[in-house]
């Protein structure tokens, strides 16, 4: 059988390409037909050349190393490009159809044909599973990378004024993120010698008792360092949840908006924000 397939390599490729192009799920927006053809040709070559009657039952045979390597590369790159699992799966399943079709065209005994198609099916099914595994692994890598990026991006510490730091928190606070938030903030307090830190939670979607506990910890830690911590950006619904849950935030200075917190900070640093004299004059003139 391996011999037959080897002779019909180009026919297999043509048939496979035809199947793929006819598939309604063809993503010509993500991959050009030319690239698809190159990928397919490489895979057919690797598979047919290495296929023989001995290793057809064993998809893990070292003969197929090249095939698994190719498949792995293809499915990882597809995962990153944004192909759906179905589209990636169809890629290899259409190859199976093409191979079986070619096998059917060969004149042979029904029983032999059945046996051979069964073997071929099994082999290709194993390859499909492999493709899926790599595809999912690729997707997970994407997710992990994004998680890391989000953690990095979403915890900036901003110096709003000499001695005043602000940290807008965006997204849900869990233990791991609180740790990052806290470390960043404390480190920055040491670096800049700031005596007031404002934690703005307007970007936190929900506050439960655990999040509140994390916030309390952050506040206690900044106090231990010798700085004051103000929590701002508490939305009405968050205020409602906090009170309904019976969380006691009375030890902490809380403000509704960042502006309120800033005002408090200015006051405690004995700073004043004034409208300039010229502008005041303008206003009196109007009156």
């Amino acid at each position: 059988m391996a011999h037959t397939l080897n002779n019909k390599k180009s026919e297999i490729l043509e048939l496979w390409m035809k199947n793929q192009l006819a598939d309604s799920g063809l993503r010509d927006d993500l991959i050009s037909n030319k690239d698809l053809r190159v990928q397919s040709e490489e895979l057919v070559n690797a598979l047919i050349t290495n296929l023989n009657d001995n290793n057809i039952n064993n998809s893990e045979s070292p003969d197929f190393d090249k095939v698994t390597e190719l498949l792995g590369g293809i499915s990882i790159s597809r995962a990153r490009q944004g192909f759906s699992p179905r589209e990636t799966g169809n890629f290899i399943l259409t190859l199976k159809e093409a191979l079986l079709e070619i096998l059917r065209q060969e004149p042979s005994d029904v029983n032999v044909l059945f046996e051979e198609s069964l073997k071929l099916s099994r082999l290709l099914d194993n390859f499909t599973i492999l493709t899926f595994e790599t595809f999912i692994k690729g997707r997970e890598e994407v997710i992990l990378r994004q998680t890391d990026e989000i953690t990095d991006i979403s915890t900036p510490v901003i110096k709003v004024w000499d001695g005043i730091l602000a940290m807008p928190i965006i997204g849900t606070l869990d233990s791991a993120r609180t740790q990052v938030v806290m470390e960043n903030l404390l480190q920055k307090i040491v670096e800049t010698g700031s005596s007031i830190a404002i934690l703005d939670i307007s970007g936190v979607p929900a506050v439960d008792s655990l999040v509140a506990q994390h916030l309390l910890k952050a506040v206690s830690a900044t106090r231990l360092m010798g700085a004051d911590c103000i929590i701002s950006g508490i939305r009405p619904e968050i205020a409602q949840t906090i009170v309904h849950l019976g969380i006691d935030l009375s030890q902490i200075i809380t403000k509704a908006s960042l502006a309120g917190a800033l005002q408090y900070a200015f006051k405690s640093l004995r700073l004043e924000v004034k409208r300039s004299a010229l502008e005041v004059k303008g206003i009196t003139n109007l009156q």
Partner: protein
Amino acid sequence: MERIPILKLGAFLLVTIQIDLYDRLALDLEEDLVAMVEKTSVKGVLIDISAVGIVDSFMGKILGNIGSMCKLLDAETVVVGMQPAVAITLVELGLPLKGVYTALNVDKGMELLRSKIEIEDIVEADDDDDTSLN
């Protein structure tokens, strides 16, 4: 035997902890410091822990104790220069150092102590600048 030096700096006492405190040393410090406060009748104590990288619950407790004892002797205690890692550890251990004031560095600690003592002298009610832990 090793001792942590206690320096008298104007109206305050300054203790700089340069090494990691082990239990015996911490207890000695507590004893020496209290004796020194009594002898010099200072109004403020500054404890600089900026060189301390590791704390345990015992050390946290000793710091709290020193604060309470000095308070009894009519002196305020300010712990200055705590490292972020130390602050996080103390919070995780559930030791927010009640009764002790904190400041970012010795300068700010001095300022804080001065404002505290002034207030006591002129018996004024409240000041916005304090970072009391109570």
